[in-house]
């Protein structure tokens, strides 16, 4: 079983996903289907941050 994860690299991809989702949300100001679905994606991205990105600071320090 793989127990070595490149947490920093995963965190970078999460950041990129977040950036894209935020850009989409900005485009959805008067587009409910775009805005609300993107907000849900952002909530899921936050769970990735809690699970991985937050710890990447700890593991790199």
């Amino acid at each position, binding site marked *: 079983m793989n127990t070595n994860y490149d947490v920093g690299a995963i965190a970078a991809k999460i950041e990129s996903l977040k950036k894209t989702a935020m850009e989409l949300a900005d485009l959805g100001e008067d587009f409910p289907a775009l805005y609300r679905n993107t907000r849900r994606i952002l909530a899921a991205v*936050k769970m990735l941050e*809690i699970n991985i990105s937050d710890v990447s*600071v700890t*593991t790199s320090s």
Partner: protein
Amino acid sequence: MLKEQPYWNPVLETLAKEKIRDLQFRKFRKIFEWGYEKSKFHRALYEKAGIKPEDIRSFEDLRRIPTVEKSMMRDIQRKDPFPYGDALCVPLDEVVEFRQTSGTTGQPVYQPDTWQDWEWWSECWSYILWAQGYRPSDRVFIPFGYNVFVAFWAGHYAAEKIGAEIVPGGVLDTQARILKIQELQCTAMMATPTYVLGMADTARKMGIDPSSLAVRKITCAGEPGASIPTTKKRMEDAWAAKVYDHAGATEIGAWCFECTAQSGGLHVNEAFFLVEIQDVETGEYIEEPGRRGKMIITALDRQAQPCIRFDSKDIIEWAGEPCPCGRTFRLIKGGVIGRADDITKVKGVLLSPSAIEEVVRGLDGLGNEFEVIVDKDGDIDRITLKVEIIKGREGERKQIEARLKDQLRLKTNLGYILEFHDHGSLPRYDVKARRFKDLRGK
């Protein structure tokens, strides 16, 4: 491959102790600042204590922050922004889920959640279910009311998230639920210990042996029973299933869980929560194993109505040994042992209702139900324990009574008036049981 991975999060769940502490501290500062900036209630509380976010530089600083009690939340609610009041940290438009506490200890407290908070709830539960062996191949039956109480709502969404199949047992009655479990060959279930035992009784009355059903994992909540060895054994024997405990609360989240190693303790999800244990008498903080105290808890990522140094009144103690499962999240020994406001002095002796449960459920010949009534005979405290004798064992009443008296004296240091009732005559409960009644103040 994914199925073989024992941890939901192999990074966080095996993180070295000092790294977990570092993560907790950084996250605590963030959530404290969030509460300070966004909640009028929290800001007023901290300003009164003269504490600002920049003052929090160590765990010692953190312990100077005032705790929040449930009664304080009751006082600020039912006001604008309606109905949550001044602890709400987001615009009302962002609240997508309402739940409330069960009201066991008084007026229910309302809990708002954003969608992110709701994702967080199911994330907490994903750790629990994965650690208890739930996998995408499971078909999970959830027999609860799907109403304003949080109960197994997040368990439902977490089971979805991990890829299992959900069978919601909502408004079905107990018999219909058992038939549905049988029909669909459900492999797992979530319920309170009281209901797990009640379902087994009902199944037998229907001519179905619960152990013949396909359920092999049961996750319990709401009561301490799944961490009381004798109650756990009754459930596991009845269903031929592994029974796992977890603890959570509406205003906190699902903060600890038993894993498949069943080492006699529950893991605190230390990546999501900061748990402190405080000596009830001295106020001293307890780090070492073997000393009981009440839990002060912070949910490190919950935003709409934050849970910052919440005085839960749950009595817990740290375990001394690490869990063989390899998780570095600390264990609390024996789960939640009781509540500071349930553990009461009777005849000058501290009595925990779960100690009585352990005795009753450990005695062959007694049914699962019981009731404890504490009242006064003149100035003297009196405890009456009502139990049921299993059908066909009535002739052994004297022997059972003698064993019950001995065990109660041994485990609780108290004498009881014992009442024996016919099997099936004491009240049954579908969700949280209320078996302990203290009538002395009335």
